[in-house]
């Protein structure tokens, strides 16, 4: 063993993120002091990021199966049956820590990484989405982070030619030191051409393709498993640098190779690079693997084994190939001007053996590396009861409140962001960002449409993690339903603070319980996901600030006949109907925060039976062709939902008075769940009768017509005026 660089001991292990107990376990497995490279392998494989040691116990409780689920969690991405012999492959993943340190590259490589998770399974990526949380607009660094993240997502996605079709953005001071960048990719593959990562075939060559290995991103996975301190920005060298041009070539080359029968197994090199890809592929296949690092294409001279094994250089893949097909494969990668190198082979030893310059640098048994990985049942503290809502009054009146809310940071038009993302490349984008509750992308050469959305309401999750978790699932399901699509499955990206703090762990467990309950009730299983913990920043005074609990969900639904989708834009005439029960819940509402300046009260109840009944009814009506537009009622309640429909097309409507016996602001801005605004032709009587028959609450909300949102007082707020208020926030923040 040659590891002269640094003495390996418990101190170095701690520096690498391993606890004393974990290091003892390493010593027991190895029966000797590990080499530096071996310690590096253990530390990244046992990092929170790679091992899910704090979350695994709870992730197991989530529902992951359904008749249409082909592969659930455990593969690079989730796979569901979308009909006609095709599968949708999708996943969402965080790149939070790198995006704070280096916003452009952090976000760009987040997109690159999630793309690879999807095309490694044989899918052509057809859509990207994202879920972004930024600090307060008043915090100076927020502007810089928004700018870098948006440029990074666009810079990468636009170049690889995958349309960015949707996403969500929130601002809150809790993200000041720790923005969240969650990126989602959806791809489509033939069900009989799906590629998995379990290695097989003793003696089969292990091939490295893509970019060369450099010294970037070393220990990135470990960085992502710790809180930030005041020196966070000095960690810039741990952030990887993306090259979307190479990624585009890699997509085309891999898909071309996948059309042959050369591949036994394939996996991208993501977090912990060569280490995690080789360990996971061999481990899943129950085989050993020998790597010869001299054969690894290298960008820099004199890289050590430790550096190569830990590098997170981007745009690389590891493939186990049929030996007789090696030259066919090599020719394809040479055509695309990418590196191709046989760097090892599979063995029957059950060990990973790493050789470099004639020395064995690592020799680790794979079974104990995986099986004895730490798993923690972290303690939880009882969650604090939500604060009382407090005194409710209406300081502004309906019209002023409306104008204020359509322009507030969490509702304001996101066009400034969307307009930097290519949303049409591929020629299959049926509903672009802002056109419908979920983006709609047609599957080329079929009648199928995919409905895609990302959702989470972090303020609900903080007040009540369980309700918040359930609400995020319900909203994703509802957004898909509102386009007429059938919700199929969901990917989760669980962003939380430090799980070693019982109150944070309680948030995590509560959210998982809510998510699981809602997924079961709505037949909407979790098929892939990612956990990002330690989203906290250490303040100069020694305390730490955690983000709001943010379990972001990425939902996928299918339209068998994509022409039967509806958008959210108000039509020229007809009747607007409110579906679902309005109780006037103002706790944690946007209205309460923006108008009264309070984040108090409990999150709204999520009645999953009503959610399902209302949604199934709305979808049935859309499919039958009587619905001209549909929009779910979420942030800001009924009045904001109606305003959004008006702003989308410029067509107006005249609102009916609120329900009697309820404060007007509770009716207009309450955020009760399970509700939709549905635009139908004529007076809506047929629709109301059908709703009554189905046991679904429904009432006329407005007569559609004109170019104003007409309030019950008779005040006319023109679509143009709403749009001016709606459009101002982002340009004012970013282009000043």
């Amino acid at each position, binding site marked *: 063993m040659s590891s002269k660089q640094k003495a390996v001991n418990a101190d170095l292990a701690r520096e690498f993120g391993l606890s004393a107990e974990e290091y003892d376990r390493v010593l027991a497995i190895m029966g000797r002091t590990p080499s530096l490279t071996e310690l590096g392998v253990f530390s990244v494989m046992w990092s929170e990021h790679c091992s899910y040691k704090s979350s695994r116990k709870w992730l197991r409780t989530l529902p992951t199966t359904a008749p249409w689920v082909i592969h659930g969690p455990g593969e690079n991405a989730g796979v569901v049956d979308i009909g006609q012999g095709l599968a949708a492959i999708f996943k969402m993943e965080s790149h939070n820590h790198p995006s704070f340190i280096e916003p452009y590259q952090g976000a760009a490589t987040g997109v690159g990484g999630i793309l690879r998770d999807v095309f490694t399974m044989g899918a052509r990526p057809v859509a990207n989405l994202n879920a972004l949380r930024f600090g307060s607009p008043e915090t100076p660094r927020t502007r810089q982070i928004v700018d870098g993240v948006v*440029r990074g997502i*666009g*810079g990468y996605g*636009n*170049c*690889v*030619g995958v349309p960015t079709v949707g996403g969500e953005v929130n601002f809150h001071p809790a993200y000041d030191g720790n923005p969240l960048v969650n990126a989602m990719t959806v791809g489509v593959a033939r069900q009989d051409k799906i590629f998995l990562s379990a290695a097989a075939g003793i003696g089969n060559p292990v091939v490295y393709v893509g970019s060369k290995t450099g010294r970037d991103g070393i220990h990135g996975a470990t960085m992502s498993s710790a809180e930030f301190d005041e020196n966070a920005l000095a960690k810039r060298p741990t952030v990887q640098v993306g*090259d*979307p*041009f*190479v990624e*585009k*070539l890699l997509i085309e080359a891999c898909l071309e190779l996948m059309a042959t029968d050369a591949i036994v197994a394939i996996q991208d090199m993501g977090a912990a690079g060569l280490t995690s890809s080789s360990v996971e592929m061999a481990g899943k296949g129950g085989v050993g693997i020998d790597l010869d690092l001299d054969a690894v294409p290298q960008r820099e001279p004199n890289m050590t084994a430790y550096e190569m094994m830990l590098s997170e250089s981007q745009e690389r893949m590891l493939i186990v190939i049929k030996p007789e097909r090696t030259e066919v494969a090599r020719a394809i990668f040479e055509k*695309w*001007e990418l590196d191709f190198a046989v760097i090892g082979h599979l063995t029957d030893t059950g060990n990973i053996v790493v050789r470099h310059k004639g020395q064995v640098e690592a020799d680790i048994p794979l079974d104990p590396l995986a099986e004895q990985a730490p798993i923690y049942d972290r303690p939880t503290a009882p969650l604090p009861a939500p604060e009382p809502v407090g005194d409710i009054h209406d300081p502004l009146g309906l019209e002023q409140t409306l104008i204020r809310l359509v322009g507030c940071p969490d509702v304001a038009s996101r*066009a400034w962001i*969307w*307009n*930097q*993302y*290519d*949303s*049409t*490349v*591929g*020629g*299959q*984008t*049926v509903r*672009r960002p802002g056109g419908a509750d979920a983006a709609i992308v*047609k599957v*080329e050469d079929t009648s199928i449409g995919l409905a895609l959305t990302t959702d989470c309401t972090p303020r609900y999750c903080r007040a009540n993690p369980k309700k918040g978790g359930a609400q995020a699932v319900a909203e994703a399901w509802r957004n898909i339903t509102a386009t007429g699509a059938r919700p199929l499955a969901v990917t989760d990206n669980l962003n939380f603070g430090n799980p070693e703090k019982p109150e944070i762990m309680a948030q995590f467990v509560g959210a998982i319980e809510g998510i699981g309950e809602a997924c079961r009730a709505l037949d909407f299983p979790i098929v892939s996901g990612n956990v990002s913990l330690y989203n906290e920043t250490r303040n100069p005074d020694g305390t730490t600030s955690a983000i709001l609990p943010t379990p972001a969900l990425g939902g996928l639904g299918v339209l068998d006949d*994509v*022409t039967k989708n509806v958008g959210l834009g108000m039509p020229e005439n007809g009747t607007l109907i409110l579906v679902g029960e309005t109780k006037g819940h103002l706790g944690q509402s946007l209205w309460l925060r923006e108008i009264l300046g309070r984040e108090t009260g409990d999150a709204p109840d999520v009645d999953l039976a009503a959610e399902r009944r209302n949604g199934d009814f709305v979808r049935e009506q859309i499919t039958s062709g009587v619905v001209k537009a549909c929009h779910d009622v979420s942030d800001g309640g009924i009045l904001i939902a109606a305003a959004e429909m008006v702003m989308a097309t410029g067509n107006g409507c005249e609102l009916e008075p609120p329900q009697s016996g309820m404060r007007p602001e509770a009716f207009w801005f309450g955020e009760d769940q399970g509700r939709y605004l549905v635009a139908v032709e004529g007076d809506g009587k047929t629709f109301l009768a059908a709703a009554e028959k189905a046991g679904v609450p429904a009432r006329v909300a407005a007569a559609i017509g004109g170019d104003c949102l007409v309030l019950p007082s008779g005040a006319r707020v023109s679509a143009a005026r709403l749009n001016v208020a709606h459009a101002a926030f982002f340009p004012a923040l970013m*282009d000043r």
Partner: protein
Amino acid sequence: MKAGIVVFPGTNRERDMAIALKAVTGHAPKILWHRDTELPELDLVVLPGGFSYGDYLRCGAMAAHSPIMREIRAFAEKGGHILGVCNGFQILTETGLLPGALLRNAGLRFLSQDCHLRVENSETPFTRRWKKGDVFRTPLAHGDGNYVADAETLKTLQGENRVAFRYAAPNGKMDAADRDSNPNGSLDAIAGILSANSRICGMMPHPEDLVDPLMGGEDGKPLFESLVEALVR
């Protein structure tokens, strides 16, 4: 009409273009590889959008030196028809087949949005299905679409009626200083230009992405129908 679409490393709108061409001709165009050293018999060569060679160095600069470009130059000299869209337009200016250059957008940000184009010359193989002054909607998606040319070139383009399309407001009003209608800040609001023989057209926006009502409209279709009308023998 026999059409061929050239794929360079980094090209990413070849499928969109193939769909649009197939929609009007009924059959799929040929896909050509940047290393090809001869062209099949073709009526139309299309250089589609994307990021050839990652837009590194300068947009289109490296693609302009691909082996196939020698053949495309010869094709042009023989009077062949060429359409370059977005990155394809950038490549045509880099090869010198069209004059001028495309710089960073005036706002220094990538732009992806709908714009409106006014047809300035309807007597070309690319525009004959429109009338002069017609306005149509089309998506654009680029970081470097700000057309520039020296004063003499601009005068030539204007004098020889070689501006095919200008960015305009939906009502047809053209104002080069107005960022709402001329989003990338192009000189004289120029969105597309023609060669002296009107057989080569370069434009930044993507009419190929608006040829199906399901995707929001068919406003881009007349361009492809014009080509079919002009080139089907």
